[in-house]
């Protein structure tokens, strides 16, 4: 059975929009809100992880080498990582 993203009709909604499956916010992709996206310059990155700590969407992850990247399915382009990155390794570019 393919799962619907949204109940199609008001009759399909659970009372009070209750959700019985945990982690459902993962299926809500917020990347479409974005106007700009963060780009990392790994030659400047010192792997401090400040971007990872400050990301309000928790969409920044660390790769095998210890560098960071944003999951663009969820990144809203708020620019907080860019603002907090003190070695200035992050740039915001038009998406």
């Amino acid at each position: 059975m393919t799962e619907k993203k949204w109940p199609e009709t008001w009759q399909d909604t659970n009372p009070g929009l209750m959700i019985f499956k945990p982690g459902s916010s993962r299926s809500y992709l917020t990347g479409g809100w974005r106007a700009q996206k963060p780009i990392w310059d790994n030659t400047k990155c010192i792997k401090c992880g400040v971007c990872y700590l400050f990301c309000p969407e928790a969409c920044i992850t660390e790769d095998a080498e210890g560098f960071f990247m944003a999951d663009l399915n969820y990144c809203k382009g708020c620019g907080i990582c860019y603002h907090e990155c003190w070695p200035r390794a992050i740039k915001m570019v038009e998406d």
Partner: protein
Amino acid sequence: MSKRIGMEIAMAAAEAVALCRPDVIAAYPITPNTHIPEHLADIVADGDLDCEYIAVESEHSALSACTGASAAGARVFTATSSQGLLYMYEIVPVVPSMRLPVIMCLGNRAISGPINIWNDHSDYMCVRDLGWISMFASNGQETIDMCIQAFKIGEHADVMLPVLVNLDGFQLTHVVEAMMMPDQEEVDKFLPPRKPFAALHPDNVVSMGTLGLPDIYNEAKKANDEALINSKKVILEIWKEWETMFGRKYEPIMSYKANDADVLMLTMGSMGETAQVAIDELRKEGFKAGLLDLKLYRPFPADELKKAVKGCKNLIVIDRAVMSGGAAAPVCAEVKSVLYDEPDRPVITNDIIGLGGRDVRVEDFIKIFKKAAKAKPERAYEIYGVRG
């Protein structure tokens, strides 16, 4: 067996709520409802009710605590009035949207300003459109009956909505009246323990109060509106059951000498009993006068109203709140909207009476009646008895 008691109505309401075995009560005292949560606090402190009584620091917290407790599956109760209701306002629409039964007594009181602690319906009118089932009691007996009925209605599997029991501040809350108080056995028989549709528990994950963005908000609102409209069926069933068990009849619109009436008056709350005396006086003078008493304000009993006014020439709607700058006072605006499509609708006049605790006397109703029977007023509504 029910017992005949003489008691202040607010305290009797507390006793009736205690008979419903609430699991959680959270309330903050405010005039004139104070004696309800105060007496419940006594009952809990005396060990007569096994209940978590949360002494909160505000009404905002009171209803928040009740909402959380209801989400966890508890039977919950709170009470407030006027500014207290306005202080909890932010949470008021959240409860029905989460489909959680919370029972609240509202000791109706005017809202500021000017600051006033006395009775009118302006506090309720602030929350009438937020999704709560709403009843208005005319006397002490109806207050305690409605308190008990409210739990059964709100918690019903086909309803799952909060219920407001309105009782006029002072006129009802502080008056000692003779009432029939059901006993524990009767209430236990009428009201089984709550069986929640879902309850917060670590073993059964559920998210409540979820986000509803443009993709789903319309559908959520429609579902909630339908739930409130459809609750009337259950309310009528439960009132029927109440009548069978306790012999006291409840209908969305109760009528008094209305069958052959040319002129009907429509009131809500404790005014109804005063108006009944006025109807008797008018009947003695030869007027074919009758009374409609609105017991259920939400869901609004449109069909019952259409039926009740059939054949009458004049309908006088008595309001106890101002809908500032509106087309009429709140009850009348609703009544006119319901009757607009009726081919033989009566001439409707609208008087606002008893604001901020101004006395409402039998002769006031008689005056309003005679004025309305004579000619249609120039303005859509008038504040009766205002000086100047």
